[in-house]
């Protein structure tokens, strides 16, 4: 169920960028979904694109970007747009955060809702480093080496999830796999999603719906 503007996944990917260095998957995903969202919904936006790029890619050593750091900076940039950045995680194994057990749980259905809701950007998710095994890059397949991909479409009836991998450009260069997958089985996906450092971490941008035009 693609967002109404699009007919195919390829149409979405056309505007997406690939990673320019191997350690910037999270930033690239965030920039892609944010710009696509602002453009698609024609949200008036004061800060220019370059500013967003600079904020996200203001590199710490080795492309490190802390979730807390980027989130607060982006909130500042997005002031006055009704758009906010949201992160959710759900972990059966991690200690539950006090008072927010239900809030924090996030399942495939929730992911599907974000994917199809017009008031949301496409979601990014973190997956375990085992993801690279699937792509034929076993050297990167370290359990702590998280990767981030964008989920474009989720169809549980047909058992398929379509995704965008920003590292594809590197995978193509070095992979031992002939055809690089662009679709994954939901159960397999959940196994990668669960194993990531922050299990089932999902992030997206959302427009507050309580605007005047609702009335």
């Amino acid at each position, binding site marked *: 169920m693609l967002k109404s503007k699009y007919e195919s996944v390829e149409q979405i990917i056309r505007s997406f960028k690939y990673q320019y260095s191997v350690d910037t998957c999270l930033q690239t995903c965030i920039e892609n979904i944010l710009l696509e969202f602002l453009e698609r919904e024609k949200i008036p936006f004061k800060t220019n694109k370059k500013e967003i790029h600079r904020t996200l890619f203001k590199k710490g050593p080795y492309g490190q970007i802390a979730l807390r750091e980027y989130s607060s900076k982006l909130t500042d940039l997005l002031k006055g747009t009704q758009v906010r950045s949201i992160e959710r995680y759900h972990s059966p194994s991690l*200690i539950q955060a006090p008072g927010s057990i239900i809030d924090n749980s996030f399942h495939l259905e929730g992911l599907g809702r974000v994917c199809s809701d017009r008031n949301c950007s496409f979601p990014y998710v973190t997956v375990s480093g085992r993801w*690279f095994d699937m792509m034929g890059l076993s*050297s990167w397949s370290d359990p702590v080496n998280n990767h981030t991909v964008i989920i474009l479409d989720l169809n549980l009836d047909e058992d398929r999830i379509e995704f965008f991998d920003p590292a594809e450009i590197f995978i193509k260069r070095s992979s031992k796999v002939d055809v690089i997958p662009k679709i994954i089985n939901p159960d397999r996906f959940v196994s990668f999603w669960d194993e990531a450092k922050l299990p089932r971490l999902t992030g997206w941008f959302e427009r507050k719906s309580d605007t005047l035009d609702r009335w």
Partner: protein
Amino acid sequence: MITLPRSVSNAEEAIRLAPAIGFMEYGQGSYLSNIDDTGDEIKLFLGIKYPLLIEDEERSIPSMRIIPDVTSINFKRNDTGRFGYDFDQYSVFKEKLIQKDYLFLQTLERELIRNTYESLSKIPSVANTLTPLMEISNSFRFQEKLDKNKVLKSRKNQRQMHNYIRFMVRNDLISVSENDIHPTGKLLGFIDSKDGNFSIRLMGDLLMRNYSELMTFLHLSGLKPYLTIANSYYTPSSEAGSLLRVGIERLRDYYKRLYRTSPILMKLRNQVSMLSEVEVLRIENRSITGIEEILSRQMGVLETMQSS
């Protein structure tokens, strides 16, 4: 924003929480590298792991960069019996990471010197930089002591000469009493030794044992470029786990990544050629490759550092 618990009840919970704190505060690549549990205090060390793609003229080799124990999260038991915790701010962490990385680089350089000093000291410009040391040492082949003032006056840059003398005293090669310089037993042993070239042995000994001092104290401009170039080749090769085959421009890119400055191509070509003459690097069909033996030693060092 995701909220994390402010305290945990035991070490097991702390260990489960640590990667989440690392992720939120320091980013994706952080991982739990070591645990120090003393009962009332638990220190969890975080390091950094991030992917690399090392390319040469023929292949792209995926690899991982690992820097363990950059910072720690400290859990302390409080009055209620639970463990509260504190950790470094992102900016502090960043500083520590840069420092640790610099330490890595220095260790690799030092090991490279240890493995290649005999070859390096055969390069004329490297030998030249150590000339003052040789002048003082070789004087003792002809006389028992030297006049310190005369030694200082032998060069225009007296301060530098002074540094050389201080350096030799520190390394137990000479002793200074009032205005006289005397050789020590160690230096005389070097001079009298029958096996091998005395100057190379002396230089090798100095380079190997006092590398960082030579670099900072004596500003050995003649040695530095050769060492950094050799290191720019062997560090990516060790990360890739095999000898790379690179063109001169790619070597310059490797150099840039490690040292953040870009050498002049013209000079680089010459320096690489000199290195290949003394068998630290090799030039085959216009591309640069290395020596298997040096690589395997550097790889060993890298492995030890990454697992510590």
